[in-house]
């Protein structure tokens, strides 16, 4: 199969302007637009978690230097004051409750309101949309417990409150905040790092 037949473009709708004008503007302009573009694009990409998102996340975690194994307690972190956030978390819980085993990992959901994340007994944090500024406590918990945090809310990856961002549409992307990952004791295999986007 020609590689192009599977191409779903990196530049999603939010990136279109950036990609179109990139060849005509100086580098500092590109960087500026890049920064704005990331914000706009990834905010637009926020959506309810699908089983495909979880599967991609679990498979990606298999490339960690210290990969998780066996039964993994997944702390689904949500903002209890925001119905949409709770609803997203509940959907995610439902996906895992059906029994989700990916690449040797058996994912067991644990609902964790963001206020209680510090005391949650979990192996992995999955941060759903809508937690907002209180996500900093998730970052603190990940650092303290030295466990990975995964989210579809790329803003939280950008600001360092969650180390790993996942996009499955229109094209799979794994985005890693290098500093946040390092603080949480997370690293990826060298070859896998060539395949992901770090910032």
């Amino acid at each position, binding site marked *: *199969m*020609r*590689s*192009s*037949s*599977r*191409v*779903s*473009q*990196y*530049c*999603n*709708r939010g*990136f*279109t302007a*950036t*990609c*179109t004008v*990139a*060849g005509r503007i100086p*580098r500092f302009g*590109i960087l500026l*637009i*890049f920064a704005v*573009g*990331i914000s706009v694009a990834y905010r637009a990409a926020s959506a309810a978690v699908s089983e495909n998102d979880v599967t*991609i996340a679990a*498979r*990606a975690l*298999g*490339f960690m*230097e*210290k*990969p998780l194994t066996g039964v993994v307690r997944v702390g689904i972190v949500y903002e209890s004051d925001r119905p949409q956030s709770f609803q997203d978390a509940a959907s995610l819980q439902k996906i895992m409750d059906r029994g989700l085993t990916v*690449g040797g990992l058996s994912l067991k959901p644990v609902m964790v309101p963001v206020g209680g994340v510090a005391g949650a007994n979990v192996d992995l944090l999955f941060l759903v949309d809508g937690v907002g500024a209180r996500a900093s406590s998730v970052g603190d918990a990940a650092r303290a417990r030295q466990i990975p945090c995964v989210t579809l809310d790329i803003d939280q990856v950008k600001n360092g409150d969650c180390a790993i961002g996942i996009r499955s549409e*229109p*094209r*799979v992307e*794994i985005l890693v905040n*290098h500093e946040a990952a390092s603080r949480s004791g997370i*690293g990826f*295999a*060298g*070859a*896998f*790092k*060539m*395949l992901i*986007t*770090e*910032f």
Partner: protein
Amino acid sequence: MLSIFPIAGLVGSLICLAMLADSGRSQAQSLDYGAAEKVFGEPVTVSVTGSPQRASDAPADIEIETADEIRQFGAYDIPGALSHLTGVDVLRWTNDDADVSIHGYDEAYSPRTLVLIDGRQVYGDFYGYTPWSALPVEFGAIRQIEVVQGPSSALFGFNAAGGVINIITYDPLHDNINTAKLSAGTQGLAQVSAVGTFKLGADTGIRVQLGGRRDDDFSTAIPAAVSGSRGSESRAAIDIAGAMQASDNLRFDIELSHSAVQQDEIPNTYNLVNLTTDTNSVLGRATLDSSLGLAQLQVYNNWLTETFPAQATGGFAGKLTNQVTVAQLQDIFKLGNDHTLRGSIEYRHNTMSTTPITGGHVFYDVVSGGAMWEWKITPGVSATNALRVDYLMLGRDGFLISGVPYTNSSWDRSLMEPSFNSSLVWRSDDLDTLRLIASRGVQLPNMEDFGGIQEVTSLAGLRIALVGLPTLGPTTVTSFQADWDRTIPWLHAALHASLYHQTTAAVISETGQISFIPSGILLSPANIGDSRTTGLDLQLSGKFSDDWHWSIAYTPQIVTDHFVAPMLVSLGVNYQHTTPVHTAKASLGWTHGNWEANGYLRYESTSYGLTSRFLTGALARIDGYIALDGRVAYKLTDRVTLSLSGQNLTQSSQRQTSGPDVERRVLGSASIDF
């Protein structure tokens, strides 16, 4: 002789890297390409820049044939599986002998495409060709075949002049593959293939491949202009690969292979002969994932022997022996978040004993250095530049026939050749990707051209001597290419368009020069001029309903030769007339429940084929033709699949080359997974 010092130096470098790694990051693991494919939903390749990349990110025109697609083709050999790819040309000379080329320029013993198995060269340097049947790899062990269209010498060095075919196999450590396939078909075909993986604890894996085939060649008439005779055909191959994860960041691989093939072939003398080819190889590889990057040391040795009867050369029987030793060290690392760099050094030793007059040896050493820089300028724009310089030192020792204007010291020369690959990739939106690619590849004269054939014969009482040409220069291919990929959501399809222009300079003709010397005639190869081509690959592929997939492709290509032979005997090459101007391919596939059916059409417009290098160089006309291949399969149980497949189904026999007409072949197969 091979010095141990380069290898010792490379090993020392790796040990130093390991020591540094211990003081830095301590945990890592090697990449599981199958798992990575599942993460990203597309194949991962290292064949473009040396760095792992998603296929859609690769800054080159790369086509990846997956294991599923290979199965659906129903081919019984690798050239058959490649023949359906856009931009790939296959000449089927006999039932088991074929030549493969990329973007035209196909010929007997085609030299322009470098073929590798998991990065190990299987290209035969002695004749500058790929002995496809002798490749020690079974279909059941192949994860994917990666076809890079265009020069790739900046990564792979000499002979990746027109493109690269890298056959990627399943990993002994990460994959569990246990399968066997039995086939029987027309022309007396009986074929068996088995692949098994075994785990020795959590950190060690072994994979074994076994393959065997017996069949008959076509029974169609041998054209008078080709002549020759047929013999028996058989193939046996074994490959054993082992991998050990020595620590979290260090992995070792070792691989041994052997193959023995006897079959009818059309070599570059353009007559039909029955040859035996034996290959052996041993490979060791160490991969270290450290804070200094992903370092890999690979050392391998290939032995290749070809035994040919007298009619292959027009007078003598002989045995060609070729040994190549390669040591490669590379390191890939990221600099910041936007830059990926690769540095590499390589040492290569190649030697061939002269034949049929023995006692001499032609050899060369090549020292190479290369670098690659990939820059993600923006999320949608990336630039990749790779540069490599190869320095070759040629030599000869031992017996040299008298009466030729050379001594062994005439071979004491060196040449330095740069090669590059540059590309700019722009993903303008969700649907479109544009690539601009410029590259320069180098095709080295083969060992025969450099003097591996040492012969004295006579014609009408005139003494004719062959000792090669020590001053022969390499052929270079400069390529410019513009690619456009577009996803068409409403059609559930994807379009690929690739416009390319290549200039091939200093084309080598193996009989391009005749010189009168006091003792008679000296027949030598020569650089005879340039050839240019411009072509366009257009491919549209997609799906409809849940069960159907399809593709159509069209490639118009114009080749113009500008050859001047110093003394015209026979140029032995004529790309302008032997490359079809129009090629079209189409496929239709259906999968439903336990059933699978696929059909493949291929059309080539009228072209010509060479018939002899030594006589008149006459061209034989090959009328335009349509060939149909197909396969129907039924999954009997979860472990057993039965299939019926066929090649060239439209006619009982059909002229596709200047050799004998190809015959229809039908075969039934049973695949068992265990």
